[in-house]
């Protein structure tokens, strides 16, 4: 006989609900509407960075964060890889190649595949070099330490930080500011969001991090995910209010 605790039951309901809404939104939004949901501002600014990079002929740097193979305490995720994929696919033929720096082994290996995939899709594999993407250090400080001297070089156009970050990484934002380089910080870690908010960099706040859409790239997925989030938010809010009232009236144990 399978026994399930209340917490596990609620968890299963939430996952089931998310899957159902995802599928429903996907089915009802097969075509892009004329009134799309507006992009997240911080992600939209990545497009400006890409333009700047190709116009100035300088390199764009992508900091991928600590990674997701269990070495960090933040929520592991693959948003950073998606951002990297979009940026790489648009900057293959730039004068200076876009370079990415990972803080974890699995992330560095997947990132290597993503970067190579971008060159392959552009039919320019001869331009691919393995040092375009790789590990810059293990642990939060070492990753930052390995990336900062690269950031201090003269031929950079800007920096995108995306992935699992820590508040300590604000030092990167400070160096970018000293070098007058624009920085976009996209992270789901609240501590890092608070620290980057205090810096001058563009930062994703709260759940916005999970909705990457740069310009017109990734629009359909973004629109679907934003709508799914909207529905989930409404359901969670209503469920909270109803449950609170039921608890108050003694109906819920």
């Amino acid at each position, binding site marked *: 006989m399978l026994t399930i605790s209340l917490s596990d039951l609620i968890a299963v309901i939430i996952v089931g609900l998310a899957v159902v809404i995802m599928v429903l939104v996907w089915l009802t939004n097969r075509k892009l509407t004329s009134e799309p949901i507006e992009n997240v501002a911080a992600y939209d600014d990545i497009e400006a960075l890409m333009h700047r990079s190709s116009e100035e002929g300088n390199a764009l740097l992508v900091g991928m964060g600590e990674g*997701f193979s269990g070495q960090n305490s933040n*929520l592991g995720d693959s948003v950073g890889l998606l951002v990297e994929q979009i940026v790489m696919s648009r900057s293959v033929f730039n004068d200076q190649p876009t370079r990415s720096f990972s803080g974890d082994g699995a992330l560095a290996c997947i990132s*290597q595949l993503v970067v190579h995939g971008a060159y392959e899709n552009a039919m320019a*594999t001869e331009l691919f070099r393995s040092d375009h993407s790789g590990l810059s250090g293990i642990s939060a400080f070492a990753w930052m330490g*390995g990336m900062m001297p690269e950031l201090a070089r003269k031929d950079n156009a800007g920096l995108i930080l995306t992935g699992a970050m820590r508040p*300590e990484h604000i030092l990167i934002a400070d160096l970018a500011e000293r070098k007058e380089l624009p920085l976009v910080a996209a992270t789901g870690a609240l501590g890092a969001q608070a620290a980057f908010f205090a810096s001058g960099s563009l930062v994703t706040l709260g759940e916005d991090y999970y909705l990457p859409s740069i310009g017109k790239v990734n629009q359909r997925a973004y629109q679907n995910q934003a709508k799914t989030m909207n529905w989930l938010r409404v359901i969670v809010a209503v469920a909270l209010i109803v449950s609170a009232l039921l608890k108050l009236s003694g109906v819920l144990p």
Partner: protein
Amino acid sequence: MSTVDLLLLLAGLVLSLMVFSYLLGDTLLFGIAMYTLVGVSAGFTVLVLLQKVILPMAISPLSAFPQTSAFLALVPLLLSVLLIWMLFKKTSRVSGIPLGFLGGVTAAALIIGVTRGTLVPQLLSIVNAFDPNKMTSAGLPNWTGIFEAFMMLAGVVAVLFVFHHQKVKKQKDAFSNSWLDGLTGFGQVFIGITFGAIFVGLFSTGLVALIAYIQYLVDFAGLW
């Protein structure tokens, strides 16, 4: 204190002073300190992984041939070989298999982690604050408890709606979403308060580390 200890202490001191050279705008000394950190931590990690993970978990079980455990140990070994192949052929497609396996495991762990570890406890704690027993004390209304529970519910709902995504056209219509704007403003107050508190927590941690570092300098000076 032996000469080796003294040299190590001196190395630590010099490296940490190199870190502070950043404040003077120097990147050379700072970079040397940072790359030392990268090199030392990488070297140490290689040793730890080989001796504490790879040898005992991946290689040792193979000695149990022909038992089932030895056959099962072949699976991660095979996946590892596919991954190591990446070192010799950067464009290797087969390396995607172990990485896909890792991605899937991570995604599943993430789904379970965020629902069971974050969502459910957070939601339950908000609802449980409305327990009638917590809202009364000695037969009288517990106004602090009541206020806290309602404030928590209203605040959390408002914060959730700060990130409600709106259509481009509707955003330009100033009057269409006035209730949502009000809710959003209310939620932003709580986000600002939370970020401010987190910021101060981080600042305090940094300050404690700075004081510990100054103490380290004083201790070092005390050796002479």
